């Protein structure tokens, strides 16, 4: 909440029949009006967006914001940004991803304001790089992960993350792996989340330290006071487990 702002709260039930959805308006005078959803007494999201009460679709859109969008929808939105510079699509992507990216920053040890900045910068990068997204190669969330990863490296380490674009990878003909042999990581998002939940705790800890705490496998070994070989084998086991799970569940 901003200091010195005047706040007026009104609440109303949008759909008395269904779940009890209460829309809170908070008017910050001279700046904007933000909204928050409360469904069955549980706050869902606080959206720092301009909200016009005459916009009949707004409430519906707001409700969707709290829900998870599926991968196809997210891919469509990213492509709309890439092809038409579609700001509505971008806003929807923002509502879905920004709070997750902020959580990512906080999980990595940033304070809320810095994590917010990381999320905003990553969303700006999403806008600019949307044309590089290829839904056949990665899920929307995986692609956004690589964006926030690179932005984190840029912001906090002042380094770059050298990328391998697909066309570059294809430049050098190789007899080893035809494109068809590639596993379909692009559609594996939900599956991976489920497999992730079944991994043993010792593997999860290693993965969390790598992805959330920005630590390489050798640093993780030091921190956990484990032999390097143990950490390496946990990484290998974790990835192998995902690979094993993938083809079976996709059939």
């Amino acid at each position: 909440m901003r200091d010195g702002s005047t706040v007026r709260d009104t609440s109303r039930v949008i759909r008395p029949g269904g779940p009890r959805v209460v829309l809170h308006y908070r008017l910050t005078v001279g700046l904007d009006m933000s909204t928050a959803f409360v469904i069955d007494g549980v706050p869902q999201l606080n959206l720092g967006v301009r909200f016009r009460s005459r916009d009949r679709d707004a409430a519906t859109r707001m409700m969707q914001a709290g829900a998870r969008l599926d991968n196809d929808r997210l891919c469509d939105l990213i492509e709309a940004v890439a092809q038409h510079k579609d700001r509505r699509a971008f806003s929807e992507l923002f509502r879905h991803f920004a709070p997750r990216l902020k959580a990512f920053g906080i999980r990595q040890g940033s304070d809320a304001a810095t994590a917010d900045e990381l999320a905003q910068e990553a969303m700006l990068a999403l806008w600019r790089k949307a044309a590089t997204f290829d839904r056949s190669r990665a899920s929307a969330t995986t692609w956004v992960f690589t964006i926030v990863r690179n932005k984190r490296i840029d912001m906090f380490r002042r380094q770059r993350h050298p990328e391998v674009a697909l066309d570059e990878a294809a430049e050098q003909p190789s007899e080893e792996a035809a494109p068809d042999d590639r596993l379909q990581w692009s559609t594996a998002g939900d599956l991976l989340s489920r497999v992730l939940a079944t991994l043993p705790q010792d593997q999860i800890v290693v993965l969390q330290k790598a992805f959330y705490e920005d630590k390489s496998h050798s640093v993780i070994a030091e921190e956990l006071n484990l032999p390097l070989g143990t950490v390496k084998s946990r990484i290998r086991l974790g990835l192998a487990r995902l690979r094993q799970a993938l083809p079976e569940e996709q059939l």
Partner: protein
Amino acid sequence: MINHHPPLELLFDYAAGTLPEPVALAVATHAALCPMCRDDIDAAEALGGAMLDTLTPVPMQEGALDAVLARLDEPEVETLAANSIAASEEGAHMIPGPLRRYLGAVRAGGWDSLPWRGITRALEEIRLPIRMPGFKVSLMRLAPGATVPVHTHRGVEYTLVLSGGFSDETGEYLPGDFACKDQSHVHRPVVDTDEPCISLVVLDAPVKLTGMVGRLVNPFLRM
């Protein structure tokens, strides 16, 4: 046919974004040449996406979306573009993309057009513009028949062959092959191809010589 790949945990660190830039460059350049490792990276990045998905969203500050919407038309400040060259430029296509962005103008003739600097009669070098304390990042070109003086490493030496090849105690290295040597290796590579051997070499700590010979000519000492 690529026979020597980065260890899986290095690909994993690359995907998680925890590698220092010079090492990440060596891994990315290998992956540009190696679909197998590219797939391992895809897998690890998909894992990163799944981990992002398991986090509980945290509401953004008020006005955050408007703030970003207002910035969408700002021109992008792109530091990387300054060094980059068009992929279509003649002679550039033989240089893998991730590496290309760190080189100046590449003219017709590809590797030969680069500003090589003679270190010895058999060795030329180009330092890449990555300034990181403790790291040295170079392209090295060794003449056919050349040997690098015997040395061991205090840190780790990453070598990615880009053209030609060399052999050492651990085998034969040809374009695309990735070598990763640490303290446990005593290392004596020999260029045994007919053409010069061009490699991307990343050193993450000074190298100590095992013999006196080569102290003056050993490029690995010049940090």
